[in-house]
């Protein structure tokens, strides 16, 4: 069974601080996606990383895919209260003609004003 472990599980920080969330697995994935979810809503896709070592930036968010495509990190610079939410990583697997995502357990981020 493939398992994606996210750390930390919960993070409470002050507005303006930096933070990093980690997503680790012993398995290799074709790609890895990061989602952000607010309470009572569906997850919203933030980014997809495909190539080992790839770095993508989305405003104050920086995503990196590990060289071996087994792990990823999300770094937020100068966090704002609007960044509060549940951050989920998901690794892609191909099964038949479908794409399956294996989700991590999530990191709940609270940014205090």
């Amino acid at each position: 069974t493939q398992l994606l472990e996210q750390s930390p599980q919960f993070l409470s920080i002050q507005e303006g601080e930096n933070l990093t969330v980690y997503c680790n697995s012993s398995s290799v994935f074709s790609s890895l996606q990061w989602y952000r979810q607010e309470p009572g809503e569906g997850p919203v896709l933030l980014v997809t990383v495909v190539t080992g070592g790839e770095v993508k930036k989305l405003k104050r968010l920086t995503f990196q895919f590990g060289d071996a495509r087994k792990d990823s990190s999300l770094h937020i610079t100068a966090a704002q209260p609007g960044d509060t939410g549940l951050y989920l990583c998901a690794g892609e697997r191909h099964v038949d003609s479908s794409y399956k995502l294996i989700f991590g357990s999530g990191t709940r981020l609270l940014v205090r004003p």
Partner: protein
Amino acid sequence: SQTIHQWPATLVQPVGSPLSLECTVEGTSNPNLYWYRQAAGRGLQLLFYSVGIGQISSEVPQNLSASRPQDRQFILSSKKLLLSDSGFYLCAWSSSKEQYFGPGTRLTVT
């Protein structure tokens, strides 16, 4: 543009009652469709996925079933609900790597 709908948004059902949750997608053809369940504040567990009409793959043994009667319609059902079926149910579609999620249904079994 593509949109995905789920209903109902919330549902409270007694143990032993039947269940039917519906998901429809607009703006795309022949999408892959997925049903997930999410425990409070946690990750998503894949329940079923479908690559076409009438084609259903089940991920875990459970009290639930899924059907795809039309290309853009995905239904999650149960004949008799259990307390453990409570949770947040999410439908998603994809045409490539990324998956796009519906707003979810909060199911409480009492």
